[in-house]
């Protein structure tokens, strides 16, 4: 993973992060590394699929990359600039290039705002547009994600999950960012809507040259959209591969665990036995 840092859209170098467990009654304070020595990079216009079972640290890494949580150690470089060493001004500028779409589309929006206000918020934060200009921009964004400009006055409860996720995506692309962190962005949707959102993400990427960090535990969805795949287990990247063929051959237990427990595509391929029962039963509380 050597190379000129500026080449990469995003480079994460040896990031280590810890959540301090508060010292509570009768419980010793313990510190587990949520992330330990994580390094990865995303080239411009590509998508990295970040896989792992729950509690592996995927979402924490996403938050660190977005600048929401300063890591204990290590660097996050956005096009060669260290995100956590920038002046507040410069950080504000760089933050518009980083956007996020979360899994739960309902809790990601203010229920009392209209679609226009939701999508317009980043625009009014960063751009100085007139009211008409902003309205037109929001209309265009809505059409971009497959909704119509007439949906502008609707509130979140009037949309289905799939539609609302489109609004979240419209908000994420409003400022023409460079990197979008998709944290389980399709996991809560049903299959038809999930497939539609994946297709939309693919189209937007081609249209705007976006880079994605696609965080998921669904290998199939990750394979559909990603150029490279990484697997996290207990705060470490245990597999990192540009080639999906090689990835599928990986022998690391965490990768095999994910691959072996993939649900069947057809009833004839269903699992006869539980893979690695012993390691599964030991999973601890979060």
């Amino acid at each position, binding site marked *: 993973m050597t190379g000129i840092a500026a080449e990469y859209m995003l480079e994460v170098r040896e990031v280590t992060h810890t959540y301090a467990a508060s010292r509570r009654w009768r419980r010793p304070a313990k510190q587990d590394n949520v992330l330990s020595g994580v390094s990865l990079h995303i080239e411009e216009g590509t998508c990295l699929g970040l896989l792992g079972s729950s509690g592996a640290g995927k979402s924490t890494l996403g938050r660190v990359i977005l600048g929401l949580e300063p890591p204990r150690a290590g660097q996050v470089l956005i096009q060669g600039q260290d995100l956590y060493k920038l002046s507040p001004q410069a950080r504000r500028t760089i933050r518009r290039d980083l956007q996020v779409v979360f899994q739960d589309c309902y809790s990601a929006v203010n229920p009392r705002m209209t679609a226009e206000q939701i999508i317009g918020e980043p625009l009014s934060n960063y751009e100085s547009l007139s009211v008409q200009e902003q309205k037109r921009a929001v209309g265009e964004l809505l059409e971009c994600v497959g909704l119509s400009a007439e949906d502008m006055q609707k509130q979140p409860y009037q949309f289905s999950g799939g539609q609302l996720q489109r609004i979240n995506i419209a908000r994420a692309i409003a400022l023409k960012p460079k990197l979008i962190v998709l944290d389980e962005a399709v996991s809560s949707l049903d299959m038809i809507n999930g497939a539609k959102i994946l297709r939309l993400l693919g189209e937007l990427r081609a249209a705007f040259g976006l880079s994605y960090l696609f965080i998921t535990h669904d290998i199939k969805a990750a394979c559909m959209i990603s150029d490279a795949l990484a697997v996290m287990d207990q705060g470490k990247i245990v597999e990192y591969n540009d080639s999906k063929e090689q990835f599928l051959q990986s022998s690391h237990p965490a990768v095999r665990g994910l691959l072996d427990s*993939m*649900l069947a595509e057809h009833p004839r391929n269903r699992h006869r036995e539980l893979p690695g029962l012993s390691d599964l039963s030991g999973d601890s509380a979060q």
Partner: protein
Amino acid sequence: MEQAEYVLQVKDLKVSVETAAGYLTLIEDVNLELKPGRVLGLVGGSGSGKTVTSLALLQMLDRQTSVIEGSIRLHTRELNGLPEKDMRRLRGSSLALIMQNPMTAFSPVYTIGVQFVESIRTHVKLGKKEARACAIRSLADVNLPDPAALLGKYPYELSGGMLQRVMLALTLCLKPSVIIADEPTTALDVTNQLQVLRQLDRMRQEHGTAILLISHDLGVIAELADEVAVMQHGRIVETADVFELFDHPRHEYTRELLAARPLLQLSPQLGGQL
């Protein structure tokens, strides 16, 4: 009581709710048949009426505002219109529900053990110690480590996958003849998903439990179901054997669902056109 061929037989189920603009029909013409030891998959997109169906079967919809028509027969007993008092006795012991989100299914202020023992003793005449022993046995049965210690823990101390297995263990304890599993694995990650599905499989093999498996994920259906009913806009549009459905889908909506399945493909087909 004569042994009916079907454990649960649903005929012409129709559910409507009262709204400001009159009655709105949510599901209509729903016919389902569950045999002992068999798994019927109920699949459909969000908003197609899957959960309304499961709640109607359990008579858990608000009786003031909703109207359930048609017949729901558990063995030979008609459930539709049964008083709440009798229904409460049946829920859990004969007709159990496993919900999507195990986090909200338990009370956060009591330990697993208290809730477990209470549920058992509501339905079965057992002393506290016996109920506790039963709980430990069935927790061990779903491969949870150290069941005795687990009973002293609170729900928030367990991961989602573990809680869902606790829920399965509780269901197992009461040996219901029908389990309605409403998206039992949606909130779990892949490794736990398979784990829960295999547990359900064991339950039907060992106890002959009939399972109504509700899911939007055809992978889950492919793993466990014997027959599949496809639901769209509150109606069942196709019922078929699981192999038949995957190989020769008849209804257009079924084909659409099958086409939307993510398949493991090596070349990125989305956005790869860069």
